[in-house]
């Protein structure tokens, strides 16, 4: 920090102006380039508090279709904000090209600089370079798609009435988490976008034809064998299955199912990279602004305000603190990236033992590689170091229903490191968080009932909402729907059905 202050510092007054924003932006961009941050073009939008709450409510979609749930979220946000229970995020950033970041009008100049470094260079470069985002989302077309979706749904409301559309959307939202192909990667989106769209249309037409077939008695579809199950293999993408196979859905409903599915897929990588994404962004706002400070471009006053906010963001309350609400992804991510840098630059013997590949390597290369090639789960299992486990004082608790106590299975000591790392990593494994439900049979030649199977993980039962969700599924499928779970003998037991057994109708 004792470098000679060769530069005249930028104005650090609290009030920002567009002129000042541009000056800071230019400096931040210069430093970001210096650290090889590769970003989409930035589009920085200054918005008001209300607009920020609106962005919150639409779960980060810059253009959202109309639905009551967004209204509810807006009201919730507004309520908690007005009561001072919650501060608004300083920024929201959209994974699109150009990358849209929202800055709140109320932020002070140092905050705006922090936000720009954080969102416009941190998140932005993450969106552009992380493998999940590269394979799953298409930053170039998302805005167009959302625009299309909004218009399409508005048109549907006009044609078929708000209630109809709302019911369909409700049903889709209930199944939104089951609208993603988890294992089968989508086709290279950016590669042949136009072609794909065309193909979608074809598929869509085809599905219409399929539906037609199915509604004919004794359908010749898949004729070979009557006893064959349909689908041939269990399908985990329930929404996709519905879109293509639900017998009585109208074409506009299929399109709505598709829209929800697409949006769900768009957010799928974000769910899996929260720690990394936030950690990466925090690491870079911290590093970039400190770099500017070392160059003498920002003042002490600026740094104090910045550090104050930064510290708040990356604080990790302890398990028994009233503020504790799980592990703070900002804290974990930021500390992990800082730790990786430390391991590269000043490795200890322990680090050399645990991380022989990266100890002493070029930190910037290593960091970029880590950011590009992992998701939370693999990132933690790859890079969580014993030192960090000690710093966080992590401990592992096993909560087994069969026992009447909780057991501390591992703590931050030599024997515990591996176990804690594995457990923390699996805590971010989406398949441990989201339930595994698959379509196993649609009785195409019989009563058209749909059967799904729940496969429990670690004997965790399905939550109470299952009946409600099945009602929504029934709304889309329009014939009997039932959910089964294998019992101890491996025999499928029905755990939920719609319509429920006593009110079975034809």
């Amino acid at each position, binding site marked *: 920090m004792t470098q000679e202050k060769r530069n005249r510092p930028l104005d650090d007054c609290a009030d920002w102006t567009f002129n000042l924003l*541009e000056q800071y*932006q230019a400096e931040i961009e210069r430093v970001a380039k210096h650290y090889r941050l590769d*970003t989409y*073009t*930035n589009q*920085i939008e*200054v918005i*008001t508090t209300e*607009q920020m709450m609106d962005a919150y409510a639409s779960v980060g979609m810059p253009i959202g279709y*109309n639905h*009551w749930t*967004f*209204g*509810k979220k*807006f*009201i919730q946000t507004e*309520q908690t904000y007005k009561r001072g229970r919650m501060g608004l995020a300083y920024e929201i950033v959209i994974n699109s090209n150009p990358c849209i970041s929202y800055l709140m*009008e109320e932020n002070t100049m140092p905050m705006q600089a922090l936000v720009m470094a954080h969102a416009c260079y941190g998140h932005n470069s993450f969106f552009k370079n992380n493998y999940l985002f590269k394979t799953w989302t298409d930053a170039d077309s998302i805005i167009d798609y959302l625009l299309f979706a909004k218009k399409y749904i508005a048109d549907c409301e006009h044609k078929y009435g*708000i209630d109809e559309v709302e019911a369909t959307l409700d049903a889709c939202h*209930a199944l939104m*988490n089951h609208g993603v192909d988890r294992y089968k990667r989508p086709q290279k989106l950016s590669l042949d976008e136009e072609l794909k769209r065309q193909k979608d249309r074809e598929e869509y037409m085809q599905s219409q034809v399929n539906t037609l077939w199915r509604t004919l008695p004794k359908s010749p579809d898949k004729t070979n064998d009557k006893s064959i199950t349909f689908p041939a293999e269990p399908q985990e993408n329930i929404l996709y299955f519905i879109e293509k196979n639900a017998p009585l859905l109208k074409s506009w409903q299929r399109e709505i199912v598709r829209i929800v599915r697409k949006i769900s897929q768009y957010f799928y990588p974000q769910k899996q990279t929260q720690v990394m994404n936030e950690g990466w962004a925090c690491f870079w706002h911290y590093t970039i602004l400190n770099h500017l400070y070392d160059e003498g471009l920002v003042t002490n006053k600026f740094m104090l305000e910045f550090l104050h906010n930064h510290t708040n963001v990356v604080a*990790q*309350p*302890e*398990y028994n*603190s009233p503020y504790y609400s*799980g592990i703070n992804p900002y804290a974990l991510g930021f500390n992990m990236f800082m730790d990786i840098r430390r391991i590269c630059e000043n490795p200890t013997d322990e680090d050399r033992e645990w991380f022989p590949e990266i100890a002493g390597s070029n930190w910037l290369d290593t960091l970029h590689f880590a950011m590009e090639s992992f998701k939370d789960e693999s990132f933690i299992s790859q890079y969580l170091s014993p030192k960090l486990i000690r710093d966080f*004082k*992590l*401990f*592992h*608790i*096993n*909560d087994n229903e069969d026992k009447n*106590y909780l*057991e*501390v*299975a591992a*703590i931050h*000591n030599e*024997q*515990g490191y591996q176990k804690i790392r594995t457990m*923390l990593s*699996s*805590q*971010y494994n989406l398949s441990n*968080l*989201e*339930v595994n*439900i698959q379509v196993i049979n649609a009785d195409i030649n019989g009563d058209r009932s749909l059967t799904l199977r*729940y496969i429990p993980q*670690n*004997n*965790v*039962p*399905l*939550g109470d*909402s299952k009946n409600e*969700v099945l009602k*929504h599924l029934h709304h889309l499928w329009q014939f009997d729907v039932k959910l089964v779970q294998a019992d101890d003998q491996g025999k499928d037991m029905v755990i939920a059905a719609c319509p429920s057994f006593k009110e079975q109708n034809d």
Partner: protein
Amino acid sequence: MANFIDRRLNGKNKSMVNRQRFLRRYKSQIKKSLSDAINKRGVTDVSSGENIIIPKKDLSEPFFHQGDGGNRNRVLPGNDQFTTGDHLPRPKGQQGQGGGEGEASDSGEGDDDFVFSISKEEYLNLLFEDLELPNLEKKQLDKLIEYKTVRTGYCADGVPSNIDIVKSLQGSIARRIAMTACKRRELKKLKERLTQLEQDNVDNISEIKDLNKQIKALEIKIAKVPFIDTFDLRFRNYAKQAVPTSKAVMFCLMDVSGSMDQATKDIAKRFYILLYLFLTRTYKAIDVVYIRHHTQAKEVDEQEFFYSQETGGTIASSALELMAKIIDERYHTSDWNIYGAQASDGDNWADDSPRCGELLNNKILPQSRYFSYIEITQRAHQTLWHQYTKVAESNAHFAMRHIKSVDDIYPVFRDLFKKNTSQAA
């Protein structure tokens, strides 16, 4: 590599549509919450919106999630006392300290109610939605007419004090120009001829003399056009314009005898609130007069009106008399729109009921815009009701309804005003 865009100016209320969708979807719950809230309000408190409470479970959007139980593992930060192998009691209430990220929110949904506020406008709209108020406003609230003198341009006659000098002089100039135009044109021609002749070498004395004579005559004619004429005068015109008064007084009459319990009063209170809110949409200033009665009537404040208990018999006419007296003393019918709302459980001293009908017919109804009577009772109607039925037959602006429970309020209120609509139309 960055573009700045100032979005602050566009799209306020971008989420308004979604908010409306939300209100639309939860209308029934919101209405329920509203009718709970109405009890806590003062009658005249309409300036604020309302807090709406909806049970959270009604709002939740279901999705498949893990339930409680099974074999779970959690990693937590900040170990201060544990070592491997420690056994600890399971925290009560299952959710306890919550788990890692996703888990806590999955199963640990709190059962707090969802509370939010709606604006005054939304509040009123929801409250009066069934009443189709806009129509009602136009059609049935025939208000008292007051006249106001306003300037309405100019007219040709009036009293001298109203002469508008500028307009009059403008008229004068115009008239003079119009009346002398052709003479001036002639004059100009003659003068030109004269100069021509004068410059001529040939002697034209007789012609010049003649010309001079003509010019003189013309000039005299021009001069004779009067500077101002009665025709020019313009007077400021005033006209009387009908202005509906924006003042109204609402009389709340209530029986507070022993037979009226608090529940009955609450029903009555809601009715008054509705009426008051209804009136606020039409009138700027509203006075509310609370008259309570048992055997004697008394003017009281709101608090006492609703919440103090009295015992004794019931003489309803005392309240009507007091109302008539107050109207005479304070609310002159030419200035005030008078509304009355009477609530009772139907009990009245039998001999008094005819007197009530008489009072209404002769004194109160002629002076009132509207008078409504609601009877809140589970029992059979008594004399007062029968008397009032007679009154209602002969008076269009008198309405009466029977209310059994809180649920009846909206329909009855709606009913009361609907009836009037059809009659007024």
